[in-house]
């Protein structure tokens, strides 16, 4: 039986999604990385949909509270709408955090951009068992004894049997009181997808360009993550030379040297060869640059690496060219004229508004 509330819940969700959809664009263009709690949940502050009424603003009215504190001391806690004895009618600011899992977030984005689902290649995702301590047992090793539970049991028993004396509270656990933490085995996915982000950090890439890359890669991450149980991300920065770096460095480094793109492609090739055998891994490569490359045959070297090593290995190779005042933007044209492959996607990102179409271009192939 479909429960009645389902209809109302769906209806509310549609409305909220309507809001989030509008907000989605705002979040992206503002370059706001939505607060990420742990690994699984993003929380988006969404104004609770509150029907307007003639009412006072809470700031003007204040209220009555209970507890310790000097005059002038701030009262803690979120000042929600539940005031004294006014069934939800107290004036209050309603900001509600709607928590969405990354999965839901990706769904919404996928719907909005009409992205096809990714078809993973290779074996089904691998899992490995992992122990999680979630339960309580009556038997176990002493090292796992739960002090609190044991104490509670002993207290309960003593009170029930009348041994407990509140004036001399002495709790002595006996064998039946002992409680132990116990574990459960959960399958945890082993990563079988890898994203390698490469970015040109030469002098011509400014903060604005990096911000665009940062935002775009977050959303690409979110989408691909939704299709694989495990996902590894690697970051490469390059000017005339390439280095592998951590996430933080990737987005913040600024060099001033020249640009040799082939250095990054070479490093990516090495990385793949070493850590990610292609027959088991789904490989995603993204390269962001302003399109300026050194002469001296470096372009040709890039084409060769792409053609022979990277394109055959990857599910997708995305090249995003961020417009900058200093870059010539030549590389995109060269790629266009020299290479064509089904899994090579080129995209030009003029400004922040172009992020969404660019994501669509990258992910629109369902690779």
């Amino acid at each position, binding site marked *: 039986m479909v429960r009645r509330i389902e209809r109302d819940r769906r209806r*509310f969700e549609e409305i909220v999604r309507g809001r989030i959809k509008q907000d989605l664009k705002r979040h992206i263009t503002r370059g706001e990385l939505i607060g990420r709690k742990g690994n699984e949940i993003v929380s988006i502050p969404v104004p609770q949909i509150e029907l307007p009424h*003639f009412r006072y603003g809470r700031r003007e009215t204040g209220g009555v509270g209970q507890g310790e504190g000097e005059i002038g001391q701030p009262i803690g806690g979120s000042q929600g709408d539940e005031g004294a004895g006014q069934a939800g009618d107290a004036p209050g600011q309603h900001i509600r955090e709607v928590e969405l899992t990354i999965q839901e977030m990706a769904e919404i984005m996928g719907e909005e951009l009409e992205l096809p689902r990714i078809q993973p290649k290779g074996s089904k995702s691998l899992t490995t068992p992992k122990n999680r301590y979630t339960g309580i047992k009556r038997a176990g090793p002493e090292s796992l004894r739960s002090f609190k539970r044991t104490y509670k049991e002993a207290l309960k028993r003593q009170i029930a049997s009348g041994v407990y004396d509140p004036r001399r509270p002495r709790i002595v656990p006996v064998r039946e009181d002992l409680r132990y933490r116990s574990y459960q085995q959960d399958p945890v996915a082993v990563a079988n997808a890898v994203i390698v982000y490469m970015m040109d950090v030469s002098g011509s890439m400014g903060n604005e360009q990096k911000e665009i890359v940062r935002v775009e890669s977050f959303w690409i991450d979110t989408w691909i993550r939704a299709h694989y149980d495990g996902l590894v991300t690697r970051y490469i920065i390059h000017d005339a030379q390439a280095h592998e770096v951590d996430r933080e460095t990737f987005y913040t480094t600024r060099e001033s040297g020249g640009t040799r793109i082939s250095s990054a492609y070479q490093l990516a090739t090495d990385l793949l060869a070493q850590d990610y055998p292609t027959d088991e891994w789904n490989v995603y490569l993204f390269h962001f640059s302003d399109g300026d490359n050194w002469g001296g045959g470096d372009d040709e070297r890039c084409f060769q690496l792409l053609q022979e090593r990277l394109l055959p290995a990857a599910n997708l190779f995305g090249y995003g060219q961020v417009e900058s005042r200093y870059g010539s933007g030549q590389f995109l044209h060269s790629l266009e004229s020299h290479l064509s492959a089904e899994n090579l996607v080129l995209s030009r990102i003029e400004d922040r508004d172009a992020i969404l179409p660019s994501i669509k271009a990258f992910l629109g192939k369902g690779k």
Partner: protein
Amino acid sequence: MQHELTPELRTLQAEIEGHARDHGLDFFEIVYQVLDWEEINEVAAYGGYPVRYPHWRHGMQYTELSRSYAYGLSKIYEMVVNNDPTYAYLLAANHLVDQKLVMAHVCGHGDFFKHNFSFAHTNRKMMDGMANHAARVRRYMERHGEDEVERLLDRCLSIDNLIDYNAPHIKRHPSVPQTTEEPRRAPRKLRAKQYMDSYINPEAALEAEQERLDEAQRRDEHFPPHPEKDVMLFLLEHAPLKNWERDVLGIVREEAYYFAPQGRTKIMNEGWASYWHSTLMTTRILTPDEFIDYADHHSGTMAPYAGSLNPYKLGLELWRDIEERWNKGRYGAAWDECDSYQERQGWDTGEMKGRGKIFEVRRHYNDLTFIDEFLTADFVRKHGLFTYEFNPISGEYVISDRDFGAVKEKLLFQLTNFGQPWIEVTDGNFLNRGELVLGHRYEGVPLKLDFARETLENVQSLWKRPVHLETYIEDEPRLMSYDGEEHTSEKRTEG
């Protein structure tokens, strides 16, 4: 899903209700339903009813409840519906001691619903009422489309606080509308011989009388003759609505009146139920091994949430305070005039009238009069009540006062008219152009402006003609207007 009580719970119910009746509680028959957490959240989202009209805000509440239950933030312990028989719900997964606590608590609510004057005029067959409303709204949705009906519901709900909370108890004026035009009223002349006439009925007096009559007639023919607090009723009777639209507005209004008493007795009602569950549990029902779990849950419900008042706690303590005062004779002139600390501390006349007093109070008061009469300076000091206000410099709410007078005043302000602005229809034919004027009785606290504008739009969509709101913005009298297209706001002179 099995909803009936298990034999064990049924025995328990009989036992607990027996104890409750021993203490003088009196309630309608109580019917329990045992639900799993999804079901109980659904019923809670519908305000305690298994069937309500479809609306997204129920879905919103449901989403919030399920999430906070799933994350372990909150759990619904008890839910009870003012109806005859009284319906109450138990969460299937709850521990037996919790079920006992809920049943004892529900006896308190049941007694309060049956005996407090605020509920005297509520529909005791609302279970059926709600189901009827749901069926009608669904039928309109089938006929006129979900979106259209839901939009109308949004509008009606946006003004569901514009009702006259005292209306069920007071007949303010006859509702028969004046239909025929009244001839001009003329002053009555005293009988006099013709030559005496100018003495007995002097010209000036007649003129003054005529003016007075004209004024009275103008006032009576004013539309509406008296300011109408029940704005929903006014719209119901006078707005150009289609029949189904009128019905939907009527449904929302009826439910608003039905729920109002629960909001207006929240402190008393929750306090009363808590008083009784704690009395019954600790003196009669609990077995020794249940004590800790009971104490844990009882203190959980009583905990004040971060800085603000918990109606359960405030209510419970006030009931206990009243009982103690009347037990020890701490009331009346002699007590009030005594200002020796020593003497007050030891004051005990041994009257033991407490129980009788609280039963009397639970019948005749609502939160407003309850606080007004029984909140004492001693109580405020003992329980650490304070007022808080917004500090615009630090951007935080800060404790502003611990003085008895200030606390009481603030509490009363929050309880008067539900802590909401007093808005009434003052003119239904403004400028003789069929425009509607709502008046806000200003008490020094301004309306939340963005909301006021949106609400005005909703009123306009029902009234169809332009609508106005007389209020104050930044302590200046203003007339806010919405004509269906744009908002204007102009200075007005007090009239």
